[in-house]
Structure formats: structure tokens, C-alpha cells
């Protein structure tokens, strides 16, 4: 074999190897895919279990005073809301009421309490600015009766609702 033919052979070999090298670097040292995270609109609201009894017994009533009251703070409300601009309202299902019940949010961990409201069948603001939050608050119920209203009982089903503020 002459020097010329050896050089030609070398060139051919180098060319072959170079081509092979180019081809094999296409073997993937990396790969990727897309991972999509979706979060649904979630609204979770829960009142602590148990019934609330507001009893006006006359104990401590001052003679000559018509208005009698009683207070209960034994229950609370917890929520988780991932929508913006939300509030919580309260209403009762009892249309004909003999006596008055007021409700107030106490010590909310998120948002702000609305003013104390008298429960009716129309939704009234209970908590404001609770959008995109998770929190809790106590519920203060106040029962009111006038001596002139006599005796009796009211049974309320109270509903709390998350709604757009």
C-alpha cells in the first residue's frame, strides 16, 4: 500500500467516524414533558356540630325592664375559599318568628366581622373580605324577648353562605 492510499484510507475513516459521531450525539441525554396543575374553584364551609339553645328564663330579670336577653358563643364557623372577593352571609329559614335572634362573628382569623344583624329569611352580611383565605370565627347568638311577647319557642335553621362580595 502506498503512502497516498494510506492517507486516503485515513481520510475515509475519519470521515466515517465523524459522521457516526454526529449521528450518535442525537441520542438524548435530556427529555422533557409538560405537567399541568389545575386548581378548581373550591368553597368549603362548616359550622361546628351541635344545636344551640337560647333560653330566656327570667333569671336576673329586673322588675320593670321589658327586654330580656341571652347569649351563646358555643359554636364556630370554619371556611376555605380560593376565589377572590367573597363574603359570608347568614339567614334563617324561620319565616314567622315570635322572638328575635341576632348573630355576630367574633374573633375572625381572616377577614372582618360585619355588624351584628337580626336574623331574617333574607341573607345578611356576617363576614366580609374572606376571599382566598382559610380561617375560622366564633358565632355569637343573642336571643331577645320582651316580657310583653309572652312565652313560647322558635326553631331556626340558620344557613351561612359564601357569596360574591
Amino acid at each position: 500500500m502506498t503512502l497516498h492510499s494510506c492517507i486516503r484510507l485515513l481520510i475515509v475513516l475519519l470521515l466515517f467516524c465523524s459522521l457516526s459521531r454526529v449521528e450518535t450525539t442525537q441520542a438524548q441525554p435530556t427529555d422533557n414533558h409538560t405537567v399541568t396543575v389545575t386548581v378548581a374553584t373550591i368553597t368549603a364551609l362548616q359550622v361546628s356540630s351541635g344545636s344551640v339553645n337560647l333560653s330566656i328564663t327570667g333569671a336576673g330579670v329586673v322588675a320593670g325592664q321589658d327586654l330580656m336577653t341571652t347569649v351563646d358563643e358555643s359554636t364556630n364557623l370554619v371556611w376555605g375559599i380560593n376565589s377572590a372577593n367573597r363574603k359570608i352571609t347568614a339567614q334563617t329559614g324561620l319565616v314567622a318568628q315570635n322572638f328575635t335572634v341576632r348573630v355576630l362573628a367574633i374573633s375572625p382569623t381572616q377577614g372582618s366581622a360585619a355588624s351584628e344583624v337580626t336574623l331574617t329569611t333574607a341573607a345578611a352580611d356576617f363576614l366580609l373580605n374572606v376571599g382566598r383565605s382559610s380561617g375560622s370565627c366564633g358565632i355569637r347568638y343573642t336571643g331577645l324577648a320582651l316580657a310583653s311577647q309572652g312565652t313560647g319557642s322558635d326553631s331556626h335553621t340558620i344557613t351561612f353562605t359564601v357569596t360574591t362580595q
Partner: protein
Amino acid sequence: MPRFLHSRIVPIILLLFLGTVEELASQSITLQGGNQTLGITTGLAGSEPVAVINTASSIDFTKANVIQKVTVQTSCLGQRFGLKVVVTSTTLGTPAAEVTLTNGMPATDLVTGVPKRPPGPNNGSCSLLYTASATFAQGNSAELGNDVHTVTYTILAQ
């Protein structure tokens, strides 16, 4: 001189190139399972939305002439929610700790100590577990859009 070239140098050069070719070709990684979607749909009052997991993806990879590792990184512009990945099992190497995937993160180890060859099989695989999470404060996709990650896995010399 020509005879010497032919009988000694040419085979050596050929072997060297073939060796290089073989090593480059062995640095291979392939994701199995395609694109994935993780949907968070429930939450607990007073707590947070319930995280979801996805185990539909795995990685196939090959040994090389050096000890290797697998890294992971992601690109997700405007990322709002949480996403983590961890290797639950691997046939070669050692799983690293769970990795929190955040936009623009540096490549982070996912599997280390993939042995060089030989001995043993040349191919390995590992199973992936993604965990998506969110807080109520982070909002929802209807208002803010989805997080779309391009998650990249790389095998390289350790």
C-alpha cells in the same frame, strides 16, 4: 511507513472513535407516560385544598462508561401552585430526596450513583411521583390560569 500506518495507527484510531461513539450513544434518557395533568378539586374548611399525586410517568435511561446521575428542572412562567417530584423506585442508582419544582430552578439531583458499565444490565428505569398542592390563598385556575410546567430530565456524568 505506509505499512506501519496501515497495520498499527489505523486500527487504533478506529477503536478510539468507536469507543467515543459508543459512550456518547449510551447517554440516553427517555420519559414514558407522556404529558400529565394534576387536578386539585377538593379542600377542607379551616385547612387547605387536598394535594393530588400522579404516578403515570417513568424514566428509562442507559448506563455509560462513567457513573451518572439524573437531574430535573422546570420552566413554568407565572407559577402559582406547588409541584414536587420524587423517584419512588429505581432499578439503578439511588433516589434523591423529593424535589420542589419551581420556575427557573437549577438542575437538581433526582437519581444519583447510576453505575457505569459493565457489569449488569445496561438499561435502567425509575418511577416518578408528582405531587401538586395549593393553598386557598393561592387562588384557583378559573381566575388565574393553570400552571404548565415543562419538566426536563437530564442524565449526565456525576
